[in-house]
């Protein structure tokens, strides 16, 4: 019987690239190695897991019962509202609806809003309700006492579902708020699926655009941690109320603070 030609034994796991040391310089997915033209399975599944976290964040929901249980410790009343978008599918395709209150919520706010306030705080699910579930409680625990000590009158804390940033404009107007602070789940990235953004707007009313606001973003323990975020927001909100403006006019100040 003729000898069969020697077969190279299959190598199950591709070797890492010799330049893997460069990974120290960036969080980018470099030096992944390859099997043929494919990314090795470990790296492929790590990517898939990160995307799964981001997708789950987009479809996550406000944990209202837990949030309601946390917020009374701040001694503030809470109200729940919804946008005109009925579900996630509508929310993703109709940003205009996510900026408007549902008819029902509008009527409810008209009925329940009393008097006026300096700051109305709105917790909006945005593109990651998990960000609110995880970070809103700890952040407010630091920020609300600062605002109180400075003598600002706070409105009820609003929980807004299927909501975009601009929903705060209509809510703020109905509450007679001088300023709205919208905490909202940011668009999830592969490395940060649960990042919180904070937008504030002086003189809220429907029809305002992004130039009228300021934003502090990437609030999470691995990004901008709660104490730093609370200090920064407190400073900026104070400045906005003192100078009676927000948006581009206030921008220089926040840059100074960042520096």
């Amino acid at each position, binding site marked *: 019987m003729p000898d069969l030609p020697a077969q190279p034994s299959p190598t199950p796991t591709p*070797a890492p690239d010799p330049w893997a040391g460069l990974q120290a310089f960036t969080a980018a997915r*470099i030096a*992944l190695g*390859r099997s043929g033209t494919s990314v090795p399975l470990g790296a492929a599944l790590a990517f898939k897991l990160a995307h799964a976290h981001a997708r789950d964040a987009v479809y996550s929901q406000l944990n209202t019962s837990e949030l309601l249980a946390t917020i009374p410790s701040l001694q503030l009343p809470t109200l729940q509202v919804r946008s005109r978008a009925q579900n996630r599918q509508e929310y993703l*395709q109709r940003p205009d609806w996510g900026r408007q209150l549902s008819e029902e919520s509008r009527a409810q706010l008209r009925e329940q809003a009393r008097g006026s306030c300096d700051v109305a705080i709105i917790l909006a699910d945005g593109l990651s309700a998990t960000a609110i579930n995880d970070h809103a409680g700890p952040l407010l625990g630091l920020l609300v006492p600062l605002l109180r000590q400075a003598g600002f009158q706070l409105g009820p804390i609003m929980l807004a579902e299927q909501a975009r940033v601009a929903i705060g404009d209509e809510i703020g107007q109905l509450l007679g708020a001088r300023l709205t602070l919208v905490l909202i789940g940011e668009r999830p990235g592969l490395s940060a699926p649960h990042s919180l953004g904070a937008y504030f707007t002086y003189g809220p009313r429907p029809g305002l655009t992004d130039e009228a606001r300021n934003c502090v973003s990437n609030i999470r323990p691995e990004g901008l941690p709660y104490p730093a975020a609370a200090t920064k927001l407190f400073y900026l909100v104070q400045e906005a109320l003192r100078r009676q403006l927000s948006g581009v006019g206030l921008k220089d100040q926040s840059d100074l603070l960042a520096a």
Partner: protein
Amino acid sequence: MPYRHVIRQRAYVFEDLKTLLARASPLRSGDVLAGVAAATYEERVAAQLALADVPLRNFLREALVPYEQDEVTRLILDTHDAAAFASIGHFTVGQLRDWLVSDAADGPTLHALAPGLTPEMVAAVSKLLRNQELIAVARRCEIITRFRNTLGLRGHLATRLQPNHPTDDLRGIAASLVDGLLYGSGDAVIGINPATDNPQAVSQLLHMLDAVREQYAIPTQSCVLCHVTTTLQLIAQQAPVDLTFQSIGGTEATNTSFGISLSLLQEAWEATLALNRGTLGDNVMYFETGQGSALSANAHHGLDQQTCEARAYAVARRFRPLLVNSVVGFIGPEYLYDGKQIIRAALEDHFCGKLLGLPMGMDVCYTNHAEADQDDMDTLLTLLGVAGCTYIMGVPGADDIMLGYQSTSFHDALYLRRVLGLRTAPEFEAWLNQQGIFDGQGHLLPASATLQLLEKLPPALH
């Protein structure tokens, strides 16, 4: 002028050409958001039936955005080449469709016809084509451009190496850049999206890219994708600018929202040409576009987003760019909802760009709030490879950590070249062979620590 079509007893009336185009457009979320989409499946096909009978000459008579109000309309109509158009001047949109898919419409014929086509004609006919026809016709177009290498040759696929970093950290960018080169990426351009438009920061990036390119004598070009006004400022300061980048749109109002005008682009084009840095050619502009940009700037004038997009290509072709790509899945699910819509839009954009004579590439991409994933991107990537797409992006592991979206990886380009037998730009491939990265047959050699590039890393990584 109204257009109409009767189906059974139902008469559909479309009040003008832009309404007809919008109703005839395949379904996508952005047109629904704008309130211009067909209300029913039947209305969409009724519009397509009516559109098929519209003479191409109507597009020269009926401006979709008024001539007096919009410099993009003026550009389109004032630069229309009547002689090139003459051969198809008697066609309807439907006849153009039947001719385009026939064997008579070969590459040289389409090339000669390009100046006679307006973006609106091309957008219109794309609405009557299926995906396979968008692919088959675009594949015949060979659009060649040059700066330090040759892009767009038939049978080639180039990549933009995109080594972004969230804080523009020079070491982080250099690390991704070296990784990309070692995977054979970067013949279209090495292009960074900067985290800030600060001129000093952009200048640092330009100098770093230029130093790496010089150090290893790489036959390619670099670009920092900042605003055109920043580039102009840096050109005045003698920064090493190879290509001038700008995002552009299909209406004057969209461009105003980007802080640009045709005259500003003209100024930037002339300033970049005057640097005379290209060794093989003088295509010096790099443009990005994307369906939905006009609506997002509230500057769409009631047009559907695909027609707006095609009009942006008229802006691009005015400046003989080296590279143009649509960032198709980047703008978000309110414009293109899912993988199906992204794939359709990408094939339309590639087709329209190529028919208008542009070196059309594509950012095959999606965001995490779109109903899409890597499988959709693999499908689109493969389709675009078959369609002869000029270039795609090269992002480490497909994950752009600065822009927060997923594009194509270095591996994706290797896959596409392998399954379709495509090559990198010839000058770049010769460099890859000389560096010991490629094997002379267009394939990667096994990774080795003895590569020249690794033995002498760029100073930014010391």
